């Protein structure tokens, strides 16, 4: 197990290194000129040249990358071109909002997905099951920005139950979390249903029934915990979905998280911020996958580590 952990950690670091090289290269060949953004449109060639020199943008690719990565090793993500603030400070100030949103989304997907999945499994083949599965597919096929705008229209504008946008209290959190979590809820409902159906056909369930355990007891105490095992391992993988989702959801709801930070930085060609957010997201995704792989054998001893 320890050797496996060590190997996975080394792999993860290599993957992150690769992500940093590719992102840096993509941003390096970006046709938009950051110097132009900083100095303004009316800047003359001499000003542009001095800005480039100041930022080291006139250096060849490998020198620029080397400087970036050596600073990164010391935990320095560089400075925003336009806001003149440390990127790490900017990300740290936005991260709590995004984390809040993700926790809310995880709660939504687990609560809705798991309960509806169990319900569908228990009603297998009946109308309830069919409708729930169609619903889950509908949710999976709905673009998040449309879901967000519609939720906003119905529950904030028409019904006035929630604020139209903004950040701070619990009621601000409800609609954005729901929007971010619904996609995952659709997946979880489908997975939970099939996992539950697998378990319900096992011998130990028949044994439990045979010895006279009530149906509710069988479902709650014998089937559910076992059906949950393969699902729990998936939560780590959701982080990838979230990292894409927050860009859209935060923009629809005006949520001040790292998704908005990244989106604004992309529009202003603020390369250090784009780099920083991409790396932070990649770290989160890699950690999530690592966690998923590590948890799986712990909760289910039948899964062997390779």
């Amino acid at each position, binding site marked *: 197990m320890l050797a496996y952990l060590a190997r996975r950690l080394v*792999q993860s670091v290599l993957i992150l290194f690769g992500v940093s090289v590719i*992102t840096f290269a993509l941003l390096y060949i970006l046709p938009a000129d950051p110097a132009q953004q900083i100095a303004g449109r009316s800047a003359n060639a001499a000003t542009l040249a001095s800005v480039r020199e100041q930022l080291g943008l006139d250096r060849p690719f490998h020198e620029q990358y080397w400087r970036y990565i050596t600073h990164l090793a010391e935990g320095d993500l560089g400075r925003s071109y336009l806001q003149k603030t440390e990127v790490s400070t900017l990300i740290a100030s936005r991260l709590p909002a995004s984390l809040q949103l993700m926790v809310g989304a995880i709660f939504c997907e687990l609560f809705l997905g798991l309960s509806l999945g169990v319900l569908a499994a228990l009603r297998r083949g009946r109308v309830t099951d069919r409708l729930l599965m169609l619903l889950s597919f*509908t949710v999976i096929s*709905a*673009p998040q920005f449309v879901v967000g705008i519609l939720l906003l229209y119905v529950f904030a504008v028409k019904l006035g139950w929630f604020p139209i946008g903004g950040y701070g209290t619990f009621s601000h959190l409800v609609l954005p979390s729901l929007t971010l979590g619904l996609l995952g809820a659709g997946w979880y409902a*489908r997975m939970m249903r099939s996992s539950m159906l697998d378990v319900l056909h096992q011998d130990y369930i028949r044994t439990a029934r045979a010895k006279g355990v009530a149906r509710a007891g069988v479902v709650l105490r014998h089937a559910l915990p076992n059906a949950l095992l393969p699902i729990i391992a998936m939560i780590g993988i959701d982080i990838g979905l979230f990292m894409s989702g927050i860009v*859209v959801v935060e923009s629809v709801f005006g949520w001040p998280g790292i998704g908005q930070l990244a989106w604004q930085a992309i529009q202003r060609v603020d390369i250090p911020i784009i780099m920083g957010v*991409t790396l932070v997201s990649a770290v989160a*995704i890699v950690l999530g996958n690592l966690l998923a792989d590590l948890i799986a054998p712990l909760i289910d001893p039948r899964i062997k580590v390779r």
Partner: protein
Amino acid sequence: MTFTPLRADDPRAGSPLSRTPGAMRMLLRRPLAVAGMIVIAFLALVAAAAPLIAPYGPAEQLFEGLTIEGAPLPPNSQFLLGTDLLGRDLLSRLIYGARTSLVIGIVANGIAVSIGAFVGIVAGFFRGFLATVLMRFTDLMMAFPALLLAIVLAALFRPSLWIVALVIALVNWVQVARVIYTETRSLTEREFIAAERAIGAGRTRILVHHILPHIVPTIIVWGTLGISTTVLLEATLSFVGIGVRPPTPSWGNMIFENQSYFISAPWLVFFPGVCILALALAFNLVGDALREVLDPTQKGRY
């Protein structure tokens, strides 16, 4: 010539390819899959016949399409689905938008599945150093937040319709590659492949006659399911303003153009949203049914 009966577990007895016609019949017995196919056929027809059925041109700004104050019109008898901020007929734009979505969906996913299948088969069949490099690269791609990567790529190349399709393909091939890699790998470890090797079959023969036919169902399934992902990604990119550029109508950029007015003119977001949902859902329903029909053992999250 001696007669050797085929055993039931001989791959030739029921190769996945020979199951395909039967699969079609099984598909037609599933109401949801049939509904999905009808929606796809309908939208394809609408896209193909766009100039014939659209009441107005997609970029035509109509004087009577705005109120005296210059506000868009809600659905009425002249403009069945209302008009947008520039006084253009929403229905006509939706009809032309179907072209954009279908073309990008099919082209982008076609490229993604081709890249994914190629990488997966090469890595899974030939193994060795090449396989390690390719699969490490897909691991790396998996660690990118997909949407951020697409946004950076789209910003990199000034997007035209084809560039958007290419960007989406460059983001979406990874999952296909992993699925097909796993499948190819497990196939090469099966006994009938070892038997083929033992009787002296060459690599090309094994690949073409024994590996590829087993991979085809997976490719068909992903070729269908993936279109839904592609359509959604195109819509999302267009929604953040870096996908298909206006005035070319795409369902995503129509919402992008009109989103700030959704409180006073909700139909401008609602109808394009329903179109995106319908197309993505249709491909998901058909793809899922295909998956169950072609490979009953596969389960879960793709």
